[in-house]
């Protein structure tokens, strides 16, 4: 790693002040950023560690809206949403491994927007709202391609608001070494609509499979997906699988997610 200073603010206000420095970089749980720093793929002169800020942590529910603090770890989400939002708990409980889940945070994952991250699929399917220190951003507007988001420099995700679905499930096809999804699909069923969020597949990053949403909105069953497919054009092709293979997996993972959510 290159050398850098590290600050450990205990309030959001102090963190924002520290991030006003152009060379500063926010550090969430560090489960992506620290390996990135070790590879010298990033060289901030200052890291602002968010893990000591209690006001960014915790989960609360108000009616059908679940609000999760940006600094809440995957492990906490897996435990505390198991009853109220089992689809999200299932997603959180399969990220990385137990030790990674004890450090990694939902805010960090969404801010990084890795094209194979799990949470973006849930945020898109559910129509979640990304709450920052200065504004609220709809998921549809937030994700802007691989590793690109609507966040401005120095902006911090303070919370994520999920409308809790009637039923939901996340199914991923894991690349067995990294355990990142080759393709992951989150399906969320509401009274008036169905959301389908797809991660890992597209070169444009996470997306909603709107044709499947429309079909499932009329009939929430695997059979509603018959004849539907996504094109392999624009899908990620690498040594783990071609674009056509990933496109095929989108259909398979969606059917499995619908079956699991029913």
């Amino acid at each position, binding site marked *: 790693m290159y050398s*850098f200073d590290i600050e450990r603010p205990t309030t959001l206000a102090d963190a924002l002040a520290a991030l006003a420095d152009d060379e500063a970089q926010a*550090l969430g749980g560090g489960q992506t950023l*620290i*390996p990135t720093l070790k590879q010298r793929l990033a060289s901030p002169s200052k890291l602002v560690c968010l893990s*000591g800020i209690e006001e960014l942590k915790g989960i609360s529910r108000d009616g059908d809206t679940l609000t999760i603090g940006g600094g809440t770890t995957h492990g906490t989400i897996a435990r505390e949403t198991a009853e109220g939002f089992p689809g999200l708990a299932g997603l959180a409980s399969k990220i990385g*491994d*137990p*030790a990674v889940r004890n*450090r990694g945070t939902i805010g960090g994952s969404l801010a990084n927007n890795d094209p194979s991250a799990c949470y973006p699929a849930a945020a898109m399917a559910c129509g979640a709202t990304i709450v920052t220190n200065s504004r609220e951003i709809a998921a549809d507007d937030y994700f802007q391609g691989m590793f690109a988001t609507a966040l401005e420099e120095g902006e911090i995700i303070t919370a994520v608001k999920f409308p809790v679905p009637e039923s939901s499930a996340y199914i991923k096809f894991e690349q067995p070494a990294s*355990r990142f999804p080759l393709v992951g699909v989150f399906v969320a069923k509401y009274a008036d609509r169905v959301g389908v969020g797809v991660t890992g597949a597209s070169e444009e990053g996470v997306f909603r499979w709107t044709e499947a949403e429309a079909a499932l909105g009329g009939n929430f069953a695997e059979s509603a997906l018959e004849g539907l497919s996504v094109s392999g054009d624009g899908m990620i092709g690498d040594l783990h699988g071609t674009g056509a293979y990933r496109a095929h997996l989108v259909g398979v993972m969606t059917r499995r997610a619908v079956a699991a959510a029913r």
Partner: protein
Amino acid sequence: MTKVTMTVNGKSVSGDVAGNTLLVEFLRSDLHLTGTHVGCDTSQCGACVVHVNGAAVKSCTMFAAEAEGAEVATIEGQANADGSLNTIQQAFQDYHGLQCGFCTPGMVMSAAALLKDNPKPSEQEVRAYLQGNICRCTGYHNIVRAIMAASGQEVPAVAAE
């Protein structure tokens, strides 16, 4: 340099660390607690697992400065007060849950974290919990058997799958 103070295995310790000093480097180089191993240094192998405020974490993927004020537990603090092996360590010996021993500190710390939250895990749960701990010697079966034994449960004769 940043001054950090934390509790390690019940003792208060402090030191001056650079911003990029990893927790595992602080433990091994500053405190000379070399029981915690660095296998991959890419947060995949789990040889460096310690507990921070009771939760298993990979100490190669956390900065020492982030552990300011924390309660840290390492393999050195696991033995009984009289120096004898604790239940989990003894089970690893009894069931041959190690060969070269490099992964063992992380395995024992992960097992301790699992059994604290889930005192009677199923074999499946043990295997799932060890996803982030890699062993290149044992094939895992005897590690799983050791953890089942440490939890006071029936030990599977041959690992299932």
